[in-house]
């Protein structure tokens, strides 16, 4: 069962990931990216990270991608008439180089089976306890980061008086 789900999620995820960069239309890319993100959430759940899996769906698929989709709709970018950017050789070279990098990295990963983990591994309580004990300072710093993002989004995107 686990193996089946792993292969399902990873193959679909990788295929959709490739479609994100191959698709001509931003809308299509966005939908493929959402699919990849949902597949990743599935993989997280397989890695016993239930809470993070839910967060992945909630924030990435439910907020970030919605925002991107929203902007695509707002700009109303239709089917691009221009051919795909980058010449075919460039894509092939990039693909081959990418493959080499992945293979080289893959050789280095020699991690076998993972240890059995406690029942509450990856639960809300477990992650929350870590977040608010050990990692409380990063958590606080994130608030500054988000504040900056809010200010930035408002300042940059607001319509200016001519």
């Amino acid at each position, binding site marked *: 069962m686990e193996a089946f789900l792993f292969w399902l999620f990873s193959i679909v995820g990788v295929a959709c990931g490739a479609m994100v960069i191959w698709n001509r239309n931003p809308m299509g890319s966005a939908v493929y990216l959402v699919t*990849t993100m949902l597949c990743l959430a599935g993989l997280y759940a397989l890695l016993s990270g239930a809470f993070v899996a839910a967060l992945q769906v909630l924030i990435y698929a439910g907020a970030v991608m919605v925002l991107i989709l929203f902007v695509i709709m707002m700009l109303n970018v239709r089917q691009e008439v221009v051919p795909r950017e980058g010449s075919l050789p460039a894509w092939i070279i990039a693909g081959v180089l990418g493959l080499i990098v992945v293979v080289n990295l893959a050789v280095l990963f020699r991690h076998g089976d993972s240890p059995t983990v406690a029942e509450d591994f990856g639960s809300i309580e477990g992650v929350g306890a870590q977040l608010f004990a050990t990692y409380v300072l990063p958590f606080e710093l994130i608030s500054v980061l988000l504040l900056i993002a809010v200010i930035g989004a408002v300042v940059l995107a607001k319509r200016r008086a001519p």
Partner: protein
Amino acid sequence: MIPISYYLVVSAILFVTGAIGVLLRRNALIMLMCLELMLNAVNLSFMAYARMLNDMGGHVFVFLSITVAAAEAAVGLAIILSIYRTRETVDVDYLSLMRH
């Protein structure tokens, strides 16, 4: 039981895919999405390592990185929007005022 390495390979493939996308695509929105893809790939690595090390610190890292990605996306989209308002295009090749 799927070995952790498999997850890491998936993560590496996605990361490289995203990187290729950022470097080759010229559509601002798609470049932004490729960045998100890269961050997602990193998150998968964190989750896999967290499982391997039996340490929930990795989950916290993912939590933080997701938040960062959200902030980045908001700012990036605002920049794209402001460019589009004056230029009516999201193709980066038109952004060449500075190549003189």
